[in-house]
């Protein structure tokens, strides 16, 4: 296969070790130009590591990277960039105190003679690019990076990939849609299609099967750091890909029975914060309620408000019949509310602490005697959840920064699943989690519900919403625009409610700088 120098990007006999961990072993893969090659595999299979090697961010322990048949000396990302290779990393990297515009063009800011920054040109470019890519409505170019939501951060990364001067030769997307909703995902696919037509070699990593089959020409599967197989997308099925990934068939689709009781655990009335207006909702014991909506609809804000971290301007929150005065997350946790937040790195993880530490943090009260924490009980707890969620790490004593993205996400979930609060709020719980583990997570959520826990799930992945929820509340613009029971809920129905405003009401604040109509175009 590798004898003829092929056009496109290839990895040849690449191995990568991190201490004792073999992240990649003898991987040989070819990414031809003008094609989208999907890279799949379980969490920790080595996908991100391979992409990092292709883009010069990691140095392989062995092997080499070739572009159009010539070996590249990828001493640094700068060399890779010069060679025309780009990456959208799994974790969006945002520069905090700098505007969205500068974030997007960092490293290639427009300039006039003498390295003078051309602010007018910068403004023109960002406005044009936002309009062209259809993100004008969801991204304010003047916002500083520190104030972006997870989805907005991901959009910035995507913009970076599509806005360089010359089109790249090869481009790698590492789970670009993990916190995007349908609408933006659709826009992204159009863009990727355009790249493919321009002859760019596209590498696409995702755990969303539907996307893969929509987008990919070929599917390469990694398992335990080795190539498990490369197949043509048109000639394979989901089941086969899953088999390649996990080495076995997965049990049938997850199906949940309703176990909701009459007991109302969470009762929210007229809750208003800076971004959420007049929200009234109830979650009963044993019930799983999903919050759906587009980017910026206010779901995460609502979740944070219930967790005590966003000031509540008016309205009441009642838990198990007790009215709560939520002034900090401590109050919420003490009352029995747990939130697994949306952004694992920024809001949840202690990267330089172990899996054990990270898992046990909110359960320490249970694990300590006097104030001394029993390490063995702590370890047992962490081990239990690491096993159940299939966390792939050398041991629970591994520091979290050495875990793959999906495995980090599992650690965040483990922390809150282990605590078993009365009300469990999960914001995008399966971001970046592989199919096998997803099923396991759904199962745990179902188990918790059966034990009487009330669960509130925020998710942008509609299949997840549909599969998991007893009831779906749709938010738009900070308000609840509709409620769908299990039987009424469908992707179309949810989307219709999520974009109700765009279809009916006239847009507010016409003085806005940039509101081209592309955004509504997706409402087919």
């Amino acid at each position, binding site marked *: 296969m590798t004898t003829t120098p092929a056009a496109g990007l290839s990895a040849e006999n690449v191995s990568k070790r991190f201490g004792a961990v073999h992240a990649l072993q003898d991987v040989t893969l070819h990414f031809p130009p003008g094609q989208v090659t999907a890279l799949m595999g379980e969490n920790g299979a080595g996908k991100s590591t391979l992409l990092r090697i292709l*883009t010069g*961010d990691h140095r392989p322990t062995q092997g080499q990277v070739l572009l159009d048949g010539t070996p590249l000396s990828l001493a*640094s*990302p*700068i060399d890779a*960039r*010069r060679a025309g290779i780009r*990456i959208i*990393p799994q974790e969006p*990297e*945002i*520069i*905090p*105190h*700098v*505007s969205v*515009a*500068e*974030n997007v063009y*960092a*490293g*290639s*800011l427009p*300039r006039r003679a*003498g*390295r*003078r*920054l051309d*602010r007018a040109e910068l403004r023109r470019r960002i406005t044009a690019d936002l309009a062209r890519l259809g993100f004008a*409505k*969801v991204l*304010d170019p*003047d*916002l*500083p*990076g520190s*104030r972006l939501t997870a989805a907005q951060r991901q959009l910035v990364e995507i913009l*970076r990939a599509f806005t360089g001067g010359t089109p790249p030769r090869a481009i790698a997307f590492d789970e670009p849609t993990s916190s995007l909703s349908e609408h933006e995902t659709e826009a992204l696919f159009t863009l990727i299609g355009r790249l493919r037509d321009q002859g760019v070699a596209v590498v696409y990593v995702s755990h969303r099967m539907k996307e893969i089959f929509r987008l990919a020409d070929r599917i390469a599967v990694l398992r335990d750091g080795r190539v498990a197989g490369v197949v043509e997308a048109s000639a394979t099925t989901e089941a086969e890909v899953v088999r390649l990934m996990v080495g076995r068939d997965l049990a049938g689709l997850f199906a949940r029975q309703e176990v909701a009781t009459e007991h109302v655990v969470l009762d929210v009335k007229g809750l208003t914060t*800076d*971004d959420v207006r007049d929200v009234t909702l109830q979650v009963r014991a044993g019930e799983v309620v999903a919050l759906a909506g587009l980017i*910026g609809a*206010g779901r995460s804000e609502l979740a944070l408000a219930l967790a005590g971290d966003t000031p509540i301007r008016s309205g009441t929150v009642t838990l198990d019949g007790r009215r709560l005065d939520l002034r*900090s997350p401590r109050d919420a946790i003490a009352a029995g509310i747990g939130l697994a937040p949306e952004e694992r790195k920024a809001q949840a993880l202690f990267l330089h602490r172990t899996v054990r530490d990270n898992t046990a943090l909110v359960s320490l009260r249970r694990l300590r005697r006097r104030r001394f924490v029993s390490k063995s009980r702590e370890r047992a707890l962490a081990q239990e959840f690491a096993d159940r969620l299939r966390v792939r790490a050398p041991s629970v004593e591994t520091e979290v920064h050495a875990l793959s993205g999906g495995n980090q996400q599992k650690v965040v979930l483990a922390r809150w699943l282990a605590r078993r609060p009365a009300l469990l709020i999960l914001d995008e719980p399966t971001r970046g989690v592989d199919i096998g583990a997803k099923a396991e997570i759904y199962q745990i959520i179902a188990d918790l519900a059966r034990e009487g826990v009330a669960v509130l799930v925020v998710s942008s992945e509609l299949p997840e919403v549909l599969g998991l929820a007893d009831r779906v509340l749709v938010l738009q*613009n*900070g308000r609840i625009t509709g409620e769908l029971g299990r039987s009424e809920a469908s992707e179309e129905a949810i989307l219709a409610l999520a974009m109700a405003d765009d279809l009916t009401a006239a*847009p*507010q*604040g*016409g*003085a*806005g*700088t940039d*509101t081209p109509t592309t955004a509504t175009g997706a409402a087919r």
Partner: protein
Amino acid sequence: MSATTAPSTRRPPSGTGPEPTRRGPRALLASIGGQNVGLLGALVVVIALFGSLDPNFLGWDNIRVIGEAATIAGLLAVVQTVVIICGGLDISVGSQAGLASVVSAMVFTATGSSAPLGIGAALLAGAAVGLLNGVVIIHGRVNPTIATLAGLAAYKGLAQLVSDGRAQGYVLGDPVFVFLSRGRIAGLPTMVWILALVAVAVHVLLTYTDIGRNIYALGGNDTAARLAGINLNKYLISAYALTGTVAALAGVLLTARTGSGQPVSGSEGLELQSITAAALGGCALKGGKGTVGGTLLAVALLGALQNGLTVQGINTFWQNVAQGLLLVAAVVIQQRRNRGRAVGLPA
């Protein structure tokens, strides 16, 4: 709430968005004070207070004195700002200045009183030492704090070794040095002009060039910058080299002011002063944030305060207490204005 820009998107009304460019008269205010209202307020209070207690305080003569006294620390604070924005720190600036001071005087003497050679040698030495800092930090992978702490000791030792620990030479027979130390241009001391020039240059670099924006980027998030193809190493090493060079300039001015090359006296403690000014001026020690304007405001505030306290004949002990209190007060006011988070770490 305020009618700045009609928020077509759903930005929260409590939006404190201080950051990117605004236009009109507010832009001017923003560029001078903006988030530095606390500092500006403190400066006004200090000036009003000491001015009313002693009219000489506001006299042209005294303002000149304040300016001259603040120049050396001010120069270092300006470059410290750059290094801090980069996410680094340079604790060795004082020692670098001391080394440069000695070198300038010794080369001056050795070359038969050639001021250009003395000054040139000092600047070269400063650049070299700064470069060394950068190389140790980047290629030795030593944390900037430790590396420059080591530099603090090592360069001081070096300055003492070459000078045998004593003041060197005497430069005030030379018109160049006399001009540096006592000259005036348009009524302002030469020293103050030098500070102004360096500050403006660095400000322009940071604000109006892509180099400057890259510096903010790499200080704010080094991974993002690396992936964006910014050559971090080059920038960081250059930042330290720049710092070394400007520290050397400060050393030359030290020589000019004191009349001879001082290995330690006059440069010890400058690191703390420069970091104080930068931090007070709004630099985040984590990097990615800070402005030359803010730093200069802090330099002015500290300078005016120190001078005022001395003018009032307040003894050192009270001066220390007063300085501590004012430092805290200025920041508290600032924080109240910017409405920092109520719960949790204030940083």
